[in-house]
């Protein structure tokens, strides 16, 4: 790349000065060069209003043409939960032995949807918005973060629906519900980090977006979204004993179980993996910081034709 600032050896041109020297003398900088990491963070912070406005705009634009309008924000997650209940609860009887199965299932589906759609939209955050990237200046990380924020707003609608479901099925209101807030913050950080990683990969190789739904579906089924991973240890044949703990330590399962623990009183702390908050924070930091740096490293290449 030609992002080098140091001056090439002088050549015999019409004036004794090379363009690079002229640029250096007047303090011009290389156009489109990647800013330093602290500078990048500062720029991103300066664009925070754009990030939130873009997320809200995307969210409201989503159902702008529907007759029922924003009602779909709540209807879509509810219908989703109903379909999963029909298949896993009624047809497959996964609910056997899981107390409060419907709250258990719905929490799982909503929390999982938050992560999976964040990652899915993150994958297309750059490649699907090339027009924006090629027209305007802003730290590109604003895009994946904004899409994650949109998913978070979407989740808050779902959570409102979830509260109604919880109360309807007689789950008592408890102080532990407040734990949902730190859990969501950690999950959001994790999602944003993974989105940024996927955004960079997807910008380089758009084909990844075709692959992601399959990866995510596999991830969903092993994360205990509609069934309890605990059941694996009880009765399953031949599965080595390390399988369940490993599955429970995967970030999706951690965040889902944390939320179940916070909201459903029949979901006990004993069902959580050991040191669950440490694991949840670790995943969030690892993905969040790592993803951000990984994304920033390719900042100047986004938008290349």
């Amino acid at each position: 790349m030609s992002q080098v600032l140091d001056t090439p050896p002088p050549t015999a041109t019409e004036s004794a000065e090379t363009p690079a020297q002229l640029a250096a003398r007047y303090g011009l900088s290389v156009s489109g060069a990647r800013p330093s990491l602290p500078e990048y963070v500062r720029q991103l912070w300066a664009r925070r209003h754009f990030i939130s406005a873009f997320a809200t705009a995307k969210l409201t634009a989503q159902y702008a043409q529907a007759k029922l309008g924003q009602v779909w924000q709540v209807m879509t997650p509810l219908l989703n939960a109903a379909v999963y209940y029909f298949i896993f609860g009624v047809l497959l009887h996964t609910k056997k032995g899981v107390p409060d199965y419907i709250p258990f299932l719905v929490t799982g589906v909503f929390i999982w949807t938050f992560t999976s759609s964040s990652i899915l939209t993150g994958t297309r955050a750059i490649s699907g918005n090339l027009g924006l990237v090629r027209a305007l200046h802003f730290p590109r990380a604003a895009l994946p973060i904004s899409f994650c924020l949109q998913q978070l707003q979407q989740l808050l609608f779902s959570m409102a629906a979830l509260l109604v479901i919880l109360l309807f099925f007689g789950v008592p209101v408890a102080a532990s519900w407040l734990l949902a807030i730190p859990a969501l913050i950690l999950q959001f950080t994790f999602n944003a980090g993974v989105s940024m990683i996927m955004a960079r990969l997807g910008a380089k190789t758009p084909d990844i977006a075709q692959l992601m739904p399959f990866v995510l579906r596999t991830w969903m089924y092993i994360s205990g979204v509609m069934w309890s991973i605990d059941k694996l240890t009880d009765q399953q044949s031949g599965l080595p004993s390390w399988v369940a703990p490993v599955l429970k330590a995967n970030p999706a399962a951690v965040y889902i179980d944390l939320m179940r623990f916070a909201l459903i009183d029949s979901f006990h702390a004993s069902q959580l993996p050991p040191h669950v908050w440490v694991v949840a924070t670790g995943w969030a930091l690892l993905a969040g910081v790592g993803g951000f740096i990984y994304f920033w490293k390719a900042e100047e290449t986004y938008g290349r034709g």
Partner: protein
Amino acid sequence: MANPNSDQRIPTVICDGVDIVYRVNGTGAGRGSATAALNRMLRRKTAEKAAGVRRVHAVKNVSFTAYKGEAIGLIGTNGSGKSTLLKAVAGLLPVENGAIYTDGQPSLLGVNAALMGDLTGEKNVYLGGLAMGMSREEIKERYQEIVDFSGINDKGDFITLPMRTYSSGMGARLRFSIAAAKDHDVLLIDEALATGDASFRKRSEKRIRELRQHAGTVFLVSHSNASIRDTCERALWLERGVLRMDGPTEEVLEAYEEFTEGSSKPKRPNPKKPKPQKQEPAAAEAPLSS
């Protein structure tokens, strides 16, 4: 046309031997496309050619220096690399070789990509302003100005309707108004003048002139020789990605018009005066060198 030597001629944009190459996937130019694609993903750069990636060399070895207070027109036939060069100056497209140095952050005049048709005009004013890096307060301050300038509300309260309901002219006017609301150091305009009806065009030309006074340097890409003549005193002529001529607008436009009229007749290998890239007057008489 005489260059005002009174000011210090501070360079704001320096292009130094710039090459820009697009890579296009999936043109089917390689052998069997699926294996070629796999090949491409696995081997990255080495097998680029064999794997069916077409390289489009859009801008070839372009060098020029733009100074503060200049308005520069970019002319050339379609597909000659004008817009590409602008995007590279804006830092939105990476260069293959060479370098572009700029003073501050040049910005393209245009926010189309950030706007959403499903949102009301009002929300789009905010969204577009934020996307250009304005603060909420700044937008609030200028909101009325933007709406008045666009003339969207002349025929009723349209600003509270979704943008997709606008006629194409109305949409274009609002987009221009939003984009022109911000002052820029180096402003890059890509054929934005040709939108709207006559009265709006007059207003926007006036606004461009204002922007020019605030901005250090203005680049204008246009196919309208008249608007280049009106706004620019210097012109760059790009043809097939090569900078053919660089000089005072009149001279360059004259040669260009001769070329375009000539090329309507079939096959003319060279225009009448095959001028090599002209010595840039600015660089030749650079006062402060050595």
